[in-house]
């Protein structure tokens, strides 16, 4: 990133302004049925050690055989990150000891990863956007899980996750605030979900982040960084960065120095603390795994995968802006999830795109959030919402009635057109009927009529009374015109 330093993103210390520099390693679980090097299931949960083959348990003599679908997923992800795809990559052993790592090493890619440099375009809430460099993406095995709270003296080890394929996606230190970091992870997650290469479910650990944080005075070279391990929600990523940056600033302003180390974020206490045990483990003694040949494929293989990619978020957003006349903000909201984008397109097809976007974003999303529904479980289908948009467009119902109609469809279901007919929700455009209502209100409120001639803003009160008298069904434009004429307001 070459953008100039944005003063708004600096953190104020006691003495100086500080720039925070962030890089991330995202571990994304590859969507696949079986593991990276064995035929055991990747399904979440399961009885202890039930999704484990003798390969995953590292029994002597077992040999890893790669899952071709995981290779394809890594290449597809690389293409989605506009990255260099390496036709030859190598698996290495990363050696360390831990009870949930039965091999004593993790099969990973060190020197020659499957995917090289790429980039992610990240939109920020203020409308600005930044390009975050991707350094590499490599395939590796996940470890098992240790439970420490079952017994006072022992840890329980379950290897169900052991050997599940992960993509480690390493960014360049291009991020300058916790907000940018959160936006980056959000965007990366959206891309992965569009591609179908990772489900992005952070609660189930499908997406975890290691966050590298350092601080510096503006214009100085990079400071010493600390790595915060295994942060498992986007909100916590933001909190961990803020906490860690302030810790480092306080130390430096007190005349101290930062030592490079691995730290853990404790959301309960709102602090990061040192994981000393991890320090010596950093001597991983990588070497090429003699059980695995280099992974090689040709350009035709990459081209075939490229041809099968779905429309990606950036392209979809640009198309929504161009074809439906949406604002970049609205387009951004709609494309955040593929299912939302598909729903919107179903509503917008053959209709006014902006009206469709308004209804999807303001009414539907608002209601879904409130009730804890996802777009997939929406009680109002795209066809039903489309019919409501049509009824407004045709002048059959007013915007206000449309909201009532939406409520009826939400809770009772049914065809919006039939509901409008059956319950007499049609907008009254018959000027005679509206005029009668207007005349009555004027006759009953002579003092207000006098005031309105002095103070034209009182027109709103008359409009409200008329709408009330007509059960909200009067055409607001007709009401306005009639009232203005009768009250003599310009």
């Amino acid at each position, binding site marked *: 990133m070459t953008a100039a330093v944005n003063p708004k993103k600096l953190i104020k210390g006691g003495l100086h302004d500080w720039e925070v520099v962030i890089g991330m390693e995202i571990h994304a679980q590859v969507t696949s*049925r079986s593991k990276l090097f064995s035929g055991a299931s990747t399904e979440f949960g399961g009885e202890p050690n039930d999704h484990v083959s003798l390969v995953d348990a590292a029994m002597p003599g077992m040999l890893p055989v*790669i899952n071709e679908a995981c*290779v394809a997923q890594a290449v597809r992800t690389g293409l989605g990150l506009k990255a260099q795809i390496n036709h030859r990559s190598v698996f290495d052993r990363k050696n360390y000891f831990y009870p949930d790592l039965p091999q004593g090493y993790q099969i990973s890619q060190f020197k020659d990863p499957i995917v090289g440099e790429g980039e992610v375009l990240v939109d920020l809430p203020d409308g600005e956007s930044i390009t975050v460099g991707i350094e590499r993406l490599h395939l590796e095995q996940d470890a098992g899980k240790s439970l420490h709270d079952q017994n006072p003296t*022992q840890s329980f080890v379950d290897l169900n996750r052991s050997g599940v394929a992960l993509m480690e996606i390493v960014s360049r230190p291009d991020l300058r605030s916790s907000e940018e970091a959160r936006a980056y992870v959000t965007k990366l997650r959206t891309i992965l979900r569009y591609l179908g290469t990772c489900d992005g479910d952070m609660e189930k650990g499908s997406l975890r982040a290691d966050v590298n944080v350092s601080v510096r005075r503006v214009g100085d070279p990079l400071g010493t960084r600390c790595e915060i391990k295994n942060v498992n929600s986007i909100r916590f990523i933001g909190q961990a960065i803020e906490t860690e940056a302030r810790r480092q600033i306080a130390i430096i302003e007190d005349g101290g120095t930062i030592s490079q180390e691995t730290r853990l974020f404790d959301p309960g206490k709102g602090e990061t603390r040192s994981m000393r045990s991890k320090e010596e483990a950093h001597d991983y003694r990588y070497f090429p795994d003699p059980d695995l040949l280099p992974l090689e494929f040709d350009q035709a293989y990459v081209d075939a995968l490229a041809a099968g990619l779905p429309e990606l978020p950036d392209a979809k957003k640009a198309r929504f802006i161009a074809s439906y006349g949406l604002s970049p903000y609205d387009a951004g909201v709609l494309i955040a999830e593929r299912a939302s984008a598909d729903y919107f397109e179903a509503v917008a097809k053959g209709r006014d795109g902006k009206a469709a976007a308004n209804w999807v974003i303001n009414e539907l999303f608002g209601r879904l959030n409130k009730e804890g529904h996802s777009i997939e479980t929406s009680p109002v289908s795209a066809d039903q919402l489309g019919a409501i948009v049509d009824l407004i467009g045709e002048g059959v119902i007013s915007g206000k009635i449309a909201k009532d109609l939406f409520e009826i469809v939400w809770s009772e279901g049914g065809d919006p057109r039939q509901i409008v007919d059956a319950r007499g929700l049609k907008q009254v455009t018959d000027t005679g009927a509206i005029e009668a209502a207007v005349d009555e209100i004027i006759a009953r409120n002579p003092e207000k009529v006098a005031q309105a001639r002095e103070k034209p803003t009182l027109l709103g009160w008359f409009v409200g009374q008329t709408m009330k008298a007509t059960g909200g069904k009067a055409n607001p434009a007709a009401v306005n015109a009639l009232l203005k004429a009768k009250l003599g307001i310009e």
Partner: protein
Amino acid sequence: MSVDATTVRRIAHLARIAVSEDEVAPLQGELNAILAFVEQLGAVDVTGVEPMTSVTPMAMKKRADAVTDGAKADAIVANAPETEDHYFLVPKVVE
């Protein structure tokens, strides 16, 4: 290349092998002898030679993405010194 006593202690620890103080000096000698032996390979000029990964030209063998294994928790924990509900039990490890 040669190793000193500190390096011997460190790699023993990384490999989780208990090495007593008396053993450090003899091990250092043995390791340095091995390293010296391996260093003779440095005499061969391998400029422009690709590292060989297989004696015969072979492509990496791949599997289809299908669940063909697992559901054998009894066998997985069969040799474990201690288990409970098919979990491996190990001395407590906490960060």
